[in-house]
């Protein structure tokens, strides 16, 4: 797909993981993600943030944060979803830049990822816990080394 080539040509550090029908996954280094995100939003026209996900790859000692972005304003590419991913080392304080100023809708999604995986989003306007009980006193529950009670 030309869109994937466009991103790869523009940003040599971006790695195209796969191109499938209607889906493109791009992994970029954490220090480049904001530039690539702005490019995807402003030049390619992906203006609607669908969801932000995070995965704990415990064996590779890495976290993945992934933004799913769709396009609304540009006809013809409304079926496409760009999956913008970044990998961060699984150490004591994983930090990634917040993309709330690129896609305003990211705010609550990033808060959720922060509390579920313990990844800090730097520059987030209001990084507080969201869904868990206020007295939650354990490691973030979606990490793979957290075992649910009774399991």
């Amino acid at each position, binding site marked *: 797909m030309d869109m994937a080539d466009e991103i790869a040509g523009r940003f040599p550090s971006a790695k195209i993981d796969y191109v499938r029908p209607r889906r493109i996954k791009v992994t970029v280094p954490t220090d480049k993600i904001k530039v690539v995100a702005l490019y995807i939003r402003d030049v390619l026209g992906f203006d609607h943030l*669908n969801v932000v996900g995070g995965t704990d790859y415990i064996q590779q000692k890495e976290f993945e944060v992934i933004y799913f972005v769709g396009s609304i304003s540009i006809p013809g590419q409304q079926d496409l*979803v760009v999956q913008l991913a970044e990998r961060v080392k699984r150490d004591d304080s994983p930090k990634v830049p917040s993309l709330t100023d690129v896609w305003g809708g*990211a705010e609550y999604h990033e808060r959720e990822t922060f509390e579920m995986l313990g990844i800090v989003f730097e520059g987030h306007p209001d990084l507080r816990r*969201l869904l868990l*009980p206020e007295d939650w006193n354990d490691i973030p529950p979606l990490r793979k080394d957290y075992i*649910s009670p009774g399991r």
Partner: protein
Amino acid sequence: MSTAFEYSPDADRIMSVSLGPQHPGAGHFRIRLWLDGDLVVRADPDPGYVHRGEEKMSEYRNYIQNVPHLERPVILDSSGILFAYSLAVDQLMNNKIPPRAEYLRVIMAELNRIISHEYYLGILGLFVGQTTMITWMMGDRDLFIDLGARIAGARVTFAYIIPGGVRNDMPQGIEVQAFETLDWFDKRMDEYEKMFFRNPLWEERSRGVGVLTREDAIKLGTTGTVLRASGVAHDIRKAEPYSVYPEFDFAVASLKEGDTWARAYVALEEMRESVKILRQAFKNIPPGPVRLKLGPQPRVPAGEVYARTEAAHGEMSYFIVSDGSPKPYRLKLGVPSFKNLPAIRHLLKGLHIADIPPVYWGLNYWPVEADH
């Protein structure tokens, strides 16, 4: 209204009030409000009172065991949430779904859309003081629950759409009951329009209240009726057609106003379109098998998938990472109500207290779904 008062130390004028989490309308959802008189200066939605850890639970169960608990966040739209899940697993496993099963999936999803919208409009009516609306809507909603129950065998929690097809075929001759219900409902919706949507009192409480502009709707990442009422005709059924939706003739309801009235009217129009789809589906449904034999513990190849559908509340999406084992390695649920959360904070600011219920419920927000 269950409230807790506390006076802010810095400014005597500003009072902080907690709306919920046991407010009968808010339903397990709290909004912290900062008020100046009866004007909202700041609102901070605080979800999480019904968080169940669906995503973590999914990692302990195999792909078939995940079906019943995944529909629990939105029992009023149980097929909507399972449709997206089944679509994602089918894509991972490369399943070729039999055509009859695709039709049954669409039938059930559209029945659930009507069931969900009826509930939404009923409660909205209650919130603007129109109690006739909730009695009508709840009564009419039961006709569709009955239809769904005859097809799926269970009431409300249908657990009908599963990876590989649907759980069972529909009973013979159900078309008669279906067409009867749809014909009656078509006329009934015209009554809704006259009785509620063109009712001066109802209009006064909802027109121009909580206006969300097109730019903000896109920027805040809203979805579903909220997005479409703000002038964006974006519906996944049309934008990224899945299942057999391309075979049906229907339109995407959309309005420009962006207020509570428009959001409710879009829901009414969507029910009209759902009736259209249901008529075509019951008429054209092909014969054949309704599910693939996957076994109780299907093997799912390693890989990732992101699938999305248009559920009743909006765009429902699943991101599943499989490592080749019978259980998902990671399952990320992207639920529409959670996506509409930023709009609550945005819209409540500057409102009068009396306008909070219609605006809040007008956003079609379902706390259990948002907390997943």
